[in-house]
């Protein structure tokens, strides 16, 4: 089996000097044996906790998105004593609510050749062979139960006239395995999990702490034993102790400032845990989504995603001739249009995976064939055209399928997509990196578990559409509740007191950070720093990266960090609701994360998934992976504020699947 895909096996380390090499990392819980039996074996081997003891075990779960709410509801039902936290006013508002397109599951309801193995295969391939084989197989295996669970909760998925569930195909996949609820699947799934959670709150098994932000992890005697949280209304700094802590705090795409994420999404929970010893894996893996509404001006606070399902019927094109770019698209004849995805990737056409569609859009705009308003001298937009679909299906059918998206587009841009083609451009959407976890979803800190977008394990270097929702719910309903038992079987752990040095230290560090931000009294707003960080990240650590650019970005970020601590202006007090103070803490953590993302990207001199290294491409400009050198998870250990991070490599070993260069041509 030949797995070397690069032309040479010469060794590069562009990041030498920026980090300290560490010991290799192994997943000690990784099961062996036939891949289809690994999960049932692990479930059987995980020790049990008897129902009478569960009541005595305290579980903290930070986050109420799909990953957190499903876990809290399930652990509550099982009889554990759960405390659930979120920064919004209600758990129902977690960022998962915004997911549009759908959720995958290997149900094979369409009899089109789908199976657990095919979902597994597509996901590993889609992730460019940088995810963990065993984890992905488990994800595919439990996917079907997720749909059963959600339907039983009353989630109103789309149905066919016979009353059975409908499916559609979704970005980069050739079978119809995506379940959906109009363009609001995330909302309906989250409401289902939220309702299950509220039911447990009423039953008294879960206590809900909304408007609470976790600001520190407590690690006592080597184990995660609780969190320090700030009550965002009163400003009170609270200590919450437990036997185990679960982070389901979502992704950190907002490090780029402009992204499709909810404005409050942040890295603080994960980053604080990282500083306490949890490794951060593959931080540079960012997914750029191809179908977002382009930036219109400098006031912009976020980018809006147009569901990927639009690519099922919309055709993507730009003018062949630069001179046509300013013209009304309806006046450009067929022969002068370049349907570039259909041209370059004839078998997948407009349905190529996200990273490929995104880069292709960037390339045509860089060539000067972009459309829409010029932003900093370049037109950054391509057409997504429904004229052909409207002709084929009729306007009513198009409206029935995509009406709410068309309305949203019209509202934001002021243009009518029924008559003029939409304009789209890639935007930061999702992060595949996150805290390192073993097969049990446990981080490198015993007793700290991480689920959903906050962990790193299932998506590799690129995430296929409709698989983040699947992972969040798989982790929360079906994986964590089993694996965590094995850890809890050793509990209840020796109680720790509020004056334990580790608790005092954590509380003091939160206090002093808050005092610092409020006392600097500088001249620049928190947002201005966030925006500047975002520009650096997008420019140098976005869709395309190079050695020089990344090194430059690291310098810029270090200077920015220095300035931030000396010159930020945060008004108001600590003992009240203070949104600038909340943001200051988050931006401080984003700055440190941004630097690590650049170091990680520098180390990985290969192009894979959403990560395109200019130094690693084929002759015709396609991404080039180097399996001989980079088939590893990069897990970073914090070594201190002024020390270089330590890199631990976990080798990715494939036994059930063969690594191949991805090709969609």
């Amino acid at each position: 089996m030949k797995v070397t895909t690069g032309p040479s096996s010469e060794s590069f380390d562009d990041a030498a000097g920026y980090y300290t090499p560490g010991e290799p990392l192994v997943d000690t819980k990784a099961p062996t044996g036939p891949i289809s039996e690994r999960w049932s074996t692990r479930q059987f081997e995980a020790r049990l906790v008897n129902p009478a003891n569960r009541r005595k075990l305290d579980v903290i779960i930070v986050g109420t998105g799909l990953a957190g709410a499903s876990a809290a509801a399930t652990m509550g039902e099982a009889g554990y004593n759960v405390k659930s936290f979120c920064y919004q006013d209600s758990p129902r508002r977690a960022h998962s609510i915004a997911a549009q397109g759908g959720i995958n599951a290997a149900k094979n309801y369409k009899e089109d050749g789908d199976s657990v193995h095919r979902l597994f295969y597509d996901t590993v391939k889609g992730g460019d062979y940088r995810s963990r084989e065993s984890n992905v197989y488990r994800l595919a295996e439990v996917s079907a139960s997720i749909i059963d669970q959600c339907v039983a909760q009353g989630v109103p998925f789309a149905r066919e006239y016979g009353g059975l569930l409908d499916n559609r195909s979704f970005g980069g996949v050739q079978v119809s395995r995506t379940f959906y609820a109009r363009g609001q699947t995330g909302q309906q799934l989250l409401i289902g999990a939220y309702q299950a959670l509220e039911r447990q709150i009423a039953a008294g098994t879960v206590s809900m702490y909304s408007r609470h932000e976790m600001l520190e992890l407590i690690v006592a005697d080597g184990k995660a034993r609780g969190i320090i949280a700030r009550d965002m209304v009163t400003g009170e700094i609270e200590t919450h102790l437990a036997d185990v802590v679960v982070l389901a705090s979502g992704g950190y795409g907002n490090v780029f400032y402009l992204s499709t994420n909810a404005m409050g999404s942040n890295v603080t929970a994960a980053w604080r845990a990282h500083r306490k010893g949890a490794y951060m894996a593959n931080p540079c893996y960012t997914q750029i989504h191809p179908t977002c509404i382009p930036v219109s001006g400098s006031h912009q606070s976020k980018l809006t995603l147009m569901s990927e399902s639009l690519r099922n019927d919309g055709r993507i094109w730009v003018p062949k001739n630069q001179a046509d770019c300013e013209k009304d698209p309806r006046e450009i004849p067929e022969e002068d249009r370049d349907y570039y995805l259909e041209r370059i990737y004839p078998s997948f056409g407009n349905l190529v995976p996200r990273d490929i569609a995104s880069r292709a859009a960037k390339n045509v705009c860089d060539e000067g064939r972009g459309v829409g308003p010029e932003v900093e001298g370049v037109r950054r937009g391509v057409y997504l055209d429904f004229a052909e679909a409207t002709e084929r299906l009729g306007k009513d059918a198009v409206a029935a399928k995509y009406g709410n998206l068309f309305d949203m587009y019209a509202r934001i841009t002021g243009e009518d997509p029924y008559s003029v083609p939409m304009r789209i451009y890639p935007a930061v959407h999702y992060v595949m990196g996150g805290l390192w976890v073993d097969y049990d979803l446990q981080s490198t800190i015993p007793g700290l578990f991480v689920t959903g977008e906050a962990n790193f394990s299932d998506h590799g270097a690129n995430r296929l559409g409709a698989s983040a929702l699947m992972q969040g719910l798989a982790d929360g309903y079906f994986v964590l509740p089993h694996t965590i038992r094995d850890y809890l079987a050793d509990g209840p752990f020796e109680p720790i007191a509020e004056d334990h040095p580790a608790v005092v230290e954590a509380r003091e560090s939160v206090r002093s950070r808050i005092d610092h931000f409020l006392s600097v009294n500088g001249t620049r707003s928190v947002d201005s720093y966030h925006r500047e960080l975002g520009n650096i990240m997008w420019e140098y650590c976005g869709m395309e990266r190079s050695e020089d650019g990344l090194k430059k970005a690291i310098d810029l970020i270090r200077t920015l960090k220095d300035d931030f601590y000396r010159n930020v202006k945060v008004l108001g007090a600590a003992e009240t609701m203070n949104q600038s103070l909340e943001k200051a803490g988050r931006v401080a953590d984003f700055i440190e994360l941004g630097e690590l993302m650049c170091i990680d990207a520098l180390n990985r001199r290969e192009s894979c998934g959403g990560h395109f290294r200019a130094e690693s491409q084929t002759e015709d400009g396609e991404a080039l992976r180097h399996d001989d050198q980079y088939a590893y998870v990069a897990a970073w250990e914090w070594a201190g504020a002024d020390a270089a991070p330590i890199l631990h490599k976990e080798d990715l070993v494939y036994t059930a699947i063969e690594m191949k260069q991805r090709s969609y041509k």
Partner: protein
Amino acid sequence: MNLTLKIWRQPDAVTAGAIHTYQLADVSPDMSFLEMLDVLNEQLNEQGEEPVAFEHDCREGICGSCGLMINGEAHGPEVTTTCQLHMRSFSDGDTITIEPWRSDAFPVVKDLVVDRSAFDRIIQQGGYVSVNTGAAPEAHSVPVPKDDADRAFNVATCIGCGACVAACPNGSASLFMGAKITHLGLLPQGQPERDSRVVNMVAQHDAEGFGGCTNIGACTASCPKEIPLDVISQLNKDLRTAIRHGH
């Protein structure tokens, strides 16, 4: 464009609030209403005045966090959420009055932020199907007619923003509650608990201090998700049936 903004400022739940007036220049019609407030906040921060607290998260019209009374209308002049309202709905020289949701059941937390946790407590009283994880039957074992599924979806799109309460002269949450009762009532999964659900949710609604519905319709007119008024008829019908069944 240039605007005069009259904004409710209130430091916390117990301190009295008042309207403050601010001038804002160079507002682009492409900005969302919240982006306009971001620009104001940058300006206030610069001048050493604490920024205006307001709630938001997704800025895509789906999380239900944002919500303001704009010139006396919940979410402003268009049928949408505040984050999806754009400044092209206003004109140069306008004076815009911005206040928090008005309702006794939604006390002010600070400035434009209110406490809507009463909604969660209503859901706790039965706004769910009691199914434990792992105990679900195969999804295709219970077919649901497409029309019912579509209608259930339509009413399930309620984002819990609270505009219906803010717009209602009685401060009733019947539209919010009716949406959930109708959603679960349309599906086979929701039947076993149908009677107890409506009785318990209505009791909680009243205990939270929401007012009764007198069919004014201001709720549905200001609902960004266009939840129809007939969910309230459904609510009342379910309540009567439940009482007849002895609940």
